[in-house]
């Protein structure tokens, strides 16, 4: 790999000596010898296995839960329902002031997505736990469900999540995350072309090779250690302490070795209930997703639908960009209110556009709650923006690389978010890409610089 130190050499203050130098991973020897210890690579005497009874419906009222038959299965030790959870309603991002708490650890009055966890069965063996889970009898009243973000926002749509009272997350009193800059409507009226397109994506499952899970072990003195493959040890510790009304010093998390995460192991789902189970039984408890659970109930990347309307001049300048973006949060917030804010912060892309209007909606539906995944809130938006950029360039017969260089941020430009651009480097990136691809670009594009806008 080549590290070009000639870019922005005058402003470069660090000597990045490690960039471009090959260094062995510190965990490589453990990986190739099978010595790396993942959370499940441990044995504990008296280990109990936890299996969940999950909702077979996308949206339903729970009329009754009967665990009598399940309790009779040989090997069953205890069965947990919502009543056993001290603070059953939580939301992961309450730690960064996201409100309200909107998700039960164990569902009790309603289920809001297919696969939602309702009853936890603890047994001496996995087989006994599975058998007993199948014998828990839950009576449901099935409710109409909504699976589409725009349908969910229509009047009369089924209400998914009562904690919000409406099918969207509220941002400081607003129904969506907004960006306003200039006057898009006036700019559309003056533009040579107005182009409107719609883009959408499906949910994407991380599918790590190691499924989500943890083991909680009672220590001496009423303290508990959790071996977990979470990507978010401290989020997990804090949320668990809140859910269990427990002092922090009683809970210990051991982790950091993750068999594939990609953002899929950032939610706090398996640990609180496994901690609770270990506290109530005083025995080690393992809660591990099966592959089917990993695919069906772990949070995927959110599906998004994005409308982009652009005002374009014949000379290649984009004069207006209006974006309406919907993030499908599924039934609960998890990381989606934050992801939607990221989506708004990322628009209108790395381009200086004088008139920008952005509405990003975080919408609740009866689909599996979505959450973090590599660049969530940004990746799908980038796909939409860059496909749109190619379409615009093609429409006016301009080279797509030159078109991007023309519109790219320059230092000192005003962003739609009312911040001045600093440290822009897109022009140089596109120039380098054109060079590597042996893609011819005109002289004006070749000599352009992020440091100043050429007149």
């Amino acid at each position: 790999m080549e590290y070009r130190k000639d870019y922005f050499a005058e402003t470069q203050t660090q000597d990045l000596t490690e960039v471009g130098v090959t260094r062995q991973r510190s965990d490589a020897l453990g990986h190739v010898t099978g010595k790396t210890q993942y959370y499940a690579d441990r044995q504990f005497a008296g280990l109990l296995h936890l299996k969940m009874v999950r909702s077979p419906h996308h949206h339903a009222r729970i009329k009754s839960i009967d665990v009598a038959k399940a309790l009779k299965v040989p090997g069953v030790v205890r069965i947990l329902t919502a009543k056993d959870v001290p603070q059953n309603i939580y939301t992961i991002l309450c730690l960064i002031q996201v409100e309200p708490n909107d998700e039960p650890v164990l569902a009790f009055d309603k289920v809001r997505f297919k696969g939602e966890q309702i009853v936890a069965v603890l047994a001496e063996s996995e087989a006994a736990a599975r058998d007993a889970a199948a014998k828990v009898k839950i009576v449901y009243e099935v409710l109409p469900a909504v699976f589409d973000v725009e349908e969910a926002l229509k009047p009369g749509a089924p209400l998914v999540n009562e904690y919000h009272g409406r099918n969207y997350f509220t941002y400081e009193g607003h129904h969506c995350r907004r960006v306003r800059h200039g006057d898009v409507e006036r700019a559309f009226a003056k533009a040579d072309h107005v182009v409107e397109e719609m883009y959408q994506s499906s949910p994407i499952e991380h599918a790590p090779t190691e499924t989500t899970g943890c083991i909680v072990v009672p220590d001496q003195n009423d303290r508990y250690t959790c071996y977990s493959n979470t990507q978010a040890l401290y989020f997990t510790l804090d949320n668990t302490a809140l859910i269990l009304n427990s002092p922090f010093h009683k809970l210990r998390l051991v982790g950091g070795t993750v068999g594939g995460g990609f953002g899929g192991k950032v939610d706090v789902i398996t640990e609180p209930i496994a901690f609770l189970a270990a506290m109530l039984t005083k025995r080690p408890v393992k809660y591990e997703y099966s592959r089917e659970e990993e695919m069906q109930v772990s949070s995927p990347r959110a599906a998004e639908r994005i409308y982009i309307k652009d005002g374009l001049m014949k000379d290649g300048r984009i004069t207006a960009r209006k974006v309406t973006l919907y993030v499908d949060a599924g039934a609960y917030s998890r990381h989606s209110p934050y992801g939607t804010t990221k989506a708004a912060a990322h628009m209108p892309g790395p381009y200086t556009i004088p008139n920008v209007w952005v509405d990003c909606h975080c919408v609740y539906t009866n689909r599996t709650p979505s959450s973090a995944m590599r660049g969530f809130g940004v990746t799908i938006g980038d796909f939409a923006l860059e496909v749109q950029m190619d379409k615009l360039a093609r429409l006016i017969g301009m080279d797509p690389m030159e078109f991007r260089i023309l519109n790219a941020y320059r230092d000192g430009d005003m962003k739609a978010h009312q911040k001045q651009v600093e440290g822009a480097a897109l022009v140089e990136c596109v120039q380098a890409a054109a060079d590597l691809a042996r893609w011819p670009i005109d002289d004006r594009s070749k000599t352009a610089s992020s440091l100043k806008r050429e007149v």
Partner: protein
Amino acid sequence: MTKVAVEFTLNTREQNEFVETGSTLLSALRDRLGLYGTKAGCHQGTCGACTVIIDGEPHLSCLTLAERCRGKDVTTLEGLAPAGALHPLQQAFMDGFAAQCGFCTPGMILAAKCLLDRNPDPTRDEVVDAISGNICRCTGYEPIIAAILTAAQGLRKPARKRA
């Protein structure tokens, strides 16, 4: 639950175990013998993380009954090289950054070992075919394929490589 006695060779040593009928080799290795180098990614024969070598062939230990291993020769990642030493495949996986999270790595290395034992000079396509039952979600496979080809080359001319 009935238990049966199973005698087999595990990483060149004679092993005698009482296993529950119907239980898997994967569970015998991990839960009874504490050999955690063999990973479980699905318990249903789809991911390849649990691959071990039985009589020279790659097998999914999650779908292999422990009782059916009677008299067989089983090798897990722990048995690939003497303690403190690395098999050329292990070295090549390290050098080539072919292990990221490492969870697929044991299965990948053992599947590759079976290939190289039977075909010391495989084509790229033959390597791809040999690991087609092993899922990796981190690397995008290219570094793994490259590492296996590098190891094959090293195994063919060990003397020159060391020089």
